[in-house]
């Protein structure tokens, strides 16, 4: 299963990538939302993990655009966010996201959490 991971913090990006790789995912990483929109057509990932807060284009805006484009609207989007407040989650779901995973995430269970959220949709 191929994941597109957008995370601006290189260390977090690395840990997430390794953790997901260990869980059996193929992971493509980018540093911001603009790159996600540029790469999504080429990579055709099974799911996209978006950091909520990123420079240039944040996760929320990126998700909105992904869902607005019929070519990418079907790809499940999962947010990585420090603000796991109900209101934020509700906003994300309203955008069509599959769910949210709280930051800081647990490296050993990150893959399991992604799978759980994908299975739910």
């Amino acid at each position: 299963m191929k994941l597109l991971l957008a995370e601006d913090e290189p260390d977090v990006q690395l840990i997430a990538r390794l953790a997901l790789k260990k869980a059996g995912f193929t992971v493509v990483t980018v540093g911001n939302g603009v790159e996600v929109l540029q790469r999504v057509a080429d990579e055709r990932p099974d799911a996209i993990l978006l950091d909520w807060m990123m420079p240039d284009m944040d996760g929320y805006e990126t998700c909105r655009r992904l869902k607005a484009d019929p070519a990418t609207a079907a790809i499940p989007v999962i947010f990585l966010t420090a603000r796991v407040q109900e209101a934020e989650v509700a906003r994300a779901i309203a955008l069509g996201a599959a769910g949210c995973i709280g930051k800081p995430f647990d490296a050993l269970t990150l893959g399991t959490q992604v799978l759980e959220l994908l299975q739910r949709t």
Partner: protein
Amino acid sequence: MKIRTRIFAVVGLVIAAAFLQALIVVNVEERRSAAAAALDRAIWRLQSQADLGRLIVELDASQRAADAGGPAVPPAERDRFWALYERSAALLPEYLDTPESKRQLAAIDALMREWRAAPAGSDRAALMGRIRGEFDRFETRERSRLGDERIKVSSQSLQSTLLTLGIPAVAIIMLLGLVAFVARILLDPLKSISTSARRISAGTFDVSLPPESNDELGDLSRAFREMITAVQRRQQEVTEARIKAERDHRRLQATIETVPVALVIVDADTGRIALQNRTAAALIGQEPEGEAARQAHWRAFSVTTRDGAPVDVRAWGAGRLLQGQTIMGEELVVKHADGREIPLLVSAAPLREDDGRISGAVAAFQDITSLYEVDRLKSEFVSIVSHELRTPLTSIKGALQLLIEDQVASDPDHTMLLNVALSNTERLVRIINDILDISKIEAGKLELNARPHAVDEVVRQSLQNVEPIAHGALVALKLEIEPAVPAVRVDLDRAIQVLVNLLSNALKVAPPRSDVTLSVRRAADGFVAFSVTDRGKGIAPDKLGLLFQKFQQLDGANTRKARGTGLGLAIVKALVEMQGGQVSVESTVGHGSTFTVTVPAARTVASSQ
């Protein structure tokens, strides 16, 4: 000498003089009456002398007639004359005063007897001539003596008259003297003292007083002088006290005006501001004259508590301060019509009169805008720093977890070191999470999403969370849920956080192979109680009160094992109370502790139990 003694002496002298005068009068009167009596006797004597003379003449005449042979006087008649003469001669000496007169009379009498006894034919005539000569001399001398008596009596009378007139005059003079004496020794000094008293009343202490003689007036004078000294000293003290009071007042005034705290003194009777300093005037303005203007003035700003609840500041103060309460450091917010909001720290105390009556109140308002700002900056700082710390720590933790999971270290020591690094990283993350929670709670920014949740949902997730710790500590987790316990209305994540915290604490202190029990039951007033009981060492009673305070960690053998942040229970307490519940603890040293939290039951959702 005492004045009393002197007056007694003078009055005694006057009385003695009066007595003496009376004696003199009596004496003079006696002498006058004696002289008068003597005069009477002299008159009687003259009469008797005259009688005696006549009888001598009669006797001589009758004798001569007999001798001449003329018409003789009968002898019986002559004998009768003789008898009369003898009687007279015998009586007369009684009226004679002097022995000489008596001797002369006796001589005359002797010659008479010689004359009578003379024989007929003898020269009786010659004898008679001698007798009559003697008698004439006698008579003449007595007559002159009578004159003396008269002079004596009249002189006595004059004396007596003079005395009668003189004594009262002397008495009057003596009385005047007495009055003058009393005036001099008594009234003059009294007058001088009363004049002095008037001058002192008028404020002049420069007075002349009678000399301090050794008597009652001297005592009075001394006492008066002491009184003047005392009054002067008292006045000096009063003056000094006034100067000190004025100085204190000026100092206080300057202090009140200088402190950056708004000070207001309110009069209880009028409800008006009696005194306020510049800071207060800047804060709430000057209270205007006139009731309508004052009402408008007080409506120009509103007062609320920190939470925004409106406060009627006058009722708020009067209701408590006039009952004698003191207000210490309460927070109020003044909102001006122009939009300014000033947070205030208010302290106030009633002002009492000497008799204890509350006559007003003094209130101090401190503008704590800057404190609020500092508090806000602190929260922001803590929040930002914590977030910034958490991100790299997460990376470290993730990296370590992945390394350990892959068993990259060939040397078991390396694996141990990696585990040490991981556990310390996890601890650091927990500390940061706790600090974030506390700062959110204190800043009032923690949002709770309370919803009905079945008890077993809360309990199951909590137990799952601590299962690995229990396993490692060889402690058995027991669950006791009362049948038909209602669902609870809580923020699920926070409720789990609370139970996990209590369970982790219990597991830390629980000895190996003991039980930690989580029990759930109905509590009073629509609440559900969750209790976590351990069989640890227990907590000393004096430590129980500290448990829920920030950064309190109990000492003991388990310290190393039980290292936490010192914030856990403070967060538990805040989270539970924010959801309307309560936290309590019971502990017996040597037997263990039970922590109980209560949370509201959800009435609308049935429990799955």
